[in-house]
């Protein structure tokens, strides 16, 4: 598979033929053209480009970290680091028998609160609808927020979660990664917290480096010896 990976910029022809165009590619006649700067990958029946730059575009089922901007009597608005605001209806938190008269939204989530949420629905016509009624979702009460570029999230997670598992193991920190590039790190020891944050920031800066896993490993282990 590796020999089919290629660096591409917008307009580059990734391939021609009967492939299904997935992320960041478009079909122009016979040709499949990249629409972003990134790395192209050709699978058995589909083609995609992993972008190296760009803003977060909501996708259904993505886990995101949001910050409450404001609320009306019926819903909250979340900043999800995108060009659209996340829309969290009050029913999602209070349940079906929510009443705009009886329930006060500010008692559950205040503006400025961090929330782990899932994109429940998103189409071109409306702002993304998010939900927090699921396991592991909801208000985040502890931890530090680290902001990274959304295009570098896959690098932070690594192949089958290898990179993030390594960081969690080495520092004993719990890391929640939002697909929108916001990451919450919490740890019982301050040293572990600092180390985990440093590792995440390093991945953000050096995402394009080939042997990044080794470098991160080195950083984490060297620090292990020192302490």
């Amino acid at each position, binding site marked *: 598979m590796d020999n089919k990976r*290629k*660096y591409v*910029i*917008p*307009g*580059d*022809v990734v391939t021609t033929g009967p492939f299904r165009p997935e992320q*960041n590619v*478009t079909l*122009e006649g016979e040709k499949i*053209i990249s*629409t*972003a*700067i990134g790395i192209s990958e050709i699978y058995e029946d589909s083609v995609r480009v992993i*972008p*190296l*730059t*760009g*803003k977060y*575009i909501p996708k259904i089922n993505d886990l995101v970290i949001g910050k409450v901007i404001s609320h009306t009597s019926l819903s909250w608005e979340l900043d999800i680091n995108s*060009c*659209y605001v996340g829309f969290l209806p009050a029913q999602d938190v209070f349940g079906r028998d929510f009443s705009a008269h009886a329930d006060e939204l500010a008692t559950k989530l205040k503006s400025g609160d961090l929330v782990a949420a899932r994109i429940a629905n998103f189409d*071109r*016509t409306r702002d993304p609808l998010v939900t927090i009624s699921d396991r592991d979702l909801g208000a985040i009460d502890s931890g530090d927020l680290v902001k990274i570029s959304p*295009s570098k999230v896959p690098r932070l997670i690594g192949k089958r979660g290898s990179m993030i598992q390594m960081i969690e193991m080495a520092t004993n920190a719990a890391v929640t990664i939002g697909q929108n590039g916001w990451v919450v790190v919490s740890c019982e020891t301050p040293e572990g917290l600092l180390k985990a944050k440093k590792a995440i920031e390093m991945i953000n800066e050096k995402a*394009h480096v080939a042997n990044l896993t080794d470098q991160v490993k080195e950083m984490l282990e060297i620090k292990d010896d020192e302490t």
Partner: protein
Amino acid sequence: MGGRDATMVLLDENGIRCDGRKVDETRRIMIKAGGLKNADGSAYIEFGDNKILVGVFGPRDVHPKHMSDTDTGILRVRYHMEPFSVGERKRPAPSRREIEISKVIKEALEPAVMLEKFPRTAVDVFIEVLQADGGTRCAALTAASVALADAGIPMRDMVAAVASGKVADTIILDVNNEEDQAGQADMPVGYMPSLEKITLLQIDGVLTPEEYKKCVQVGVDGCKQVYELQKKALKDKYFGNGGD
């Protein structure tokens, strides 16, 4: 403007132009992607003596809200010349010429940018001409396209641009300021190299149909040269020297 210098030799008997170039040669071009920290994407271009900086923001919320379109995103372009970009101080307020060039560049970028992916948002392109020496609209369009790619805005293709023209009855590539003032015709061409489509074509001057065809062809060939430099600028930033 308009002060024609009859004594200047625009093209000598050896086919060498007033600044020492051959008829089908562009000026020195240097493009750099990135550079502005606060912009989502940026680019800097030196096109001969033109120096232009471009910053791109977006997709982001549209303000004022009534400008937003529920079907598609909108592209807003501001082309602006610094007061010190030309010999005599230019008043900083947008002139008729700057408003026109903003519109022309916007329309030249629109076929490439996939705005329909971001309904109700805006992409803003800010072009600042730091130093002008003829052909700024082409240089600005070239740089704007690199900055848009740098911002990660989905595009069908890059847009490269260069002007061709007619000087001393000869079709030339990349018209400079002197040739623009004293020449017979000037034709800026914007081109999408992979899709093989022209997105900008203007003419100032008189050309016969044959000359017109040749002029377009020369312009398109020039755009392909510019495109290679755009590609290099982006690959240098994102793939280092390992880019193929």
